[in-house]
């Protein structure tokens, strides 16, 4: 019996060592190279740490949206990607995602996904040609997506709200 308990303890020690090794291995790339995906406390920190001048964020937030964003993630390698995720004040589920990318950066798996597109409308967003898509997002229901090119960047915002709110929010991200 004592032997069995000893073996179980030894096994979990081995697993703990493996967890430690994995943690170190997960940290190594960030130590070797700047610009790999990391969490940031604020957009100001993103600007200063990654030496970026243009980081787009809205000046208008629909009622009920919690500020600041629950997640700010940024990377410059292999391509620039800045991601902001916002929740509702009365729930923890993500209701707004803003992604700023450059080059052919691939978007990661997002917590708000449009599963069915019902409408797609090109429109003018302060002189930029933008695309508004309306559809169904799982599990929240109706959602809207706006995408446009801003200088060297591509901006995409998706929110679980009517299209009018999404357009208003996109509009507030561009200086007049």
């Amino acid at each position, binding site marked *: 019996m004592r032997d069995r308990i000893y073996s179980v303890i*030894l096994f979990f020690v081995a697993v703990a060592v*493996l967890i430690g090794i994995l943690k170190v291995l997960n940290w190594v790339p960030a130590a070797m190279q700047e610009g*790999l*995906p990391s*969490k940031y406390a604020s957009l100001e920190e993103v600007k200063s740490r990654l030496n970026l001048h243009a980081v787009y964020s809205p000046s208008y937030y629909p009622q009920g949206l919690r500020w600041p964003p629950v997640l700010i993630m940024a990377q410059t390698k292999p391509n620039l990607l800045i991601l902001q995720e916002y929740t509702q004040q009365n729930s923890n589920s993500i209701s707004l995602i803003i992604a700023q990318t450059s080059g052919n950066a*691939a978007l990661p*798996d997002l917590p708000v996904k449009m599963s069915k597109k019902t409408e797609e409308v090109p429109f003018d967003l302060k002189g930029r040609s933008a695309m508004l898509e309306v559809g169904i997002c799982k599990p929240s229901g109706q959602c809207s997506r706006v995408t446009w090119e801003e200088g060297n960047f591509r901006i995409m915002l998706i929110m679980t709200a009517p299209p009018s709110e999404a357009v208003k929010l996109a509009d507030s991200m561009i200086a007049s």
Partner: protein
Amino acid sequence: MSLSSLYNSYPGLYIAQSFLHSLTTALIVDAAIRVWKIEHPAMRQKFRFFIIFFPVVSYPLYQLVNPDRGSLSFRLGALFDSSRWLNLELLSGVSAGIIFIVLLALTTLLFFSQELVPVVQHALQSRREELLGEKLSEDSPVMRALTAFTDVKPDVFIIQDDDLVLFVTTGKKPALYLSTGSMRALSEDELHTAIAHELAHIERNKRPLLVITFLLRVLQFFNIVSLIEFRRIVQEEEIICDDTAVTQTGKPQALAATLRKFHPENDGEADPQPNAAINTRERMEQYGHSLLIESRITRLETYDEHPRTGGVIPLLITMAAAVALNYSIV
């Protein structure tokens, strides 16, 4: 398609994660086998089967449990995030992601050239060889030996060859092939144990586990961990058949002597002038094979009738640990 798009796609995520999951599972399983001192080959095979099986289903299963597992917030809090390494630029601008693709390509090449093609060739060759051998008369020592064992009654064919040859073909109509050289070189006890070992292969081949393992291994053709673990399962299979032969004949020393005769390179004497024509890879393979044969011979010479199985609990604990840990490896 850019490299980052590839690694963000479902196939890319599946390949990267199943590789990592098989690697960590293999490390956990090895630790478990050492800690619980599991010596029973059939039990060790069950542990290793889990290394082949689990990575095939782990990624879709985890995604089913938590569809947000691929999200950035999850990845940033994960124990290990593969994308951090895959996007890492190493010397001369070559990313680790490219090196990973090269590894996958080499493994795939190895799988096709060393596993799939030989298996197909063997299947075709077995059919042809059915016509080559001579059938043996019922009163021969081999046929007498066969009557002593199990319900398996394969056709027996004699090959006119001075070399030591003994193998079976399995399937619906199993057959045992034996060279005249083997019949001359082996004593009656050695012949009994060797035949018992081969019959054990035929008997075990009726079980679908190895076929299922091979099919799962085919699905992981790109995964070098699965390639190594499948070979270890096959090695355990040889040891299981050794044990079956010893149980039936009660003569482990005779089987050890048979192995020595079939593999004279394992007589302990090193070749003083290795053939220059044999390249490094072949020498390494030969060396690896010799080590395996030697370990089987040593095991038979110090035969333990009741090797430690460890029971089912260590297997369940190991599986649970692997499932829990890999959930946080994305």
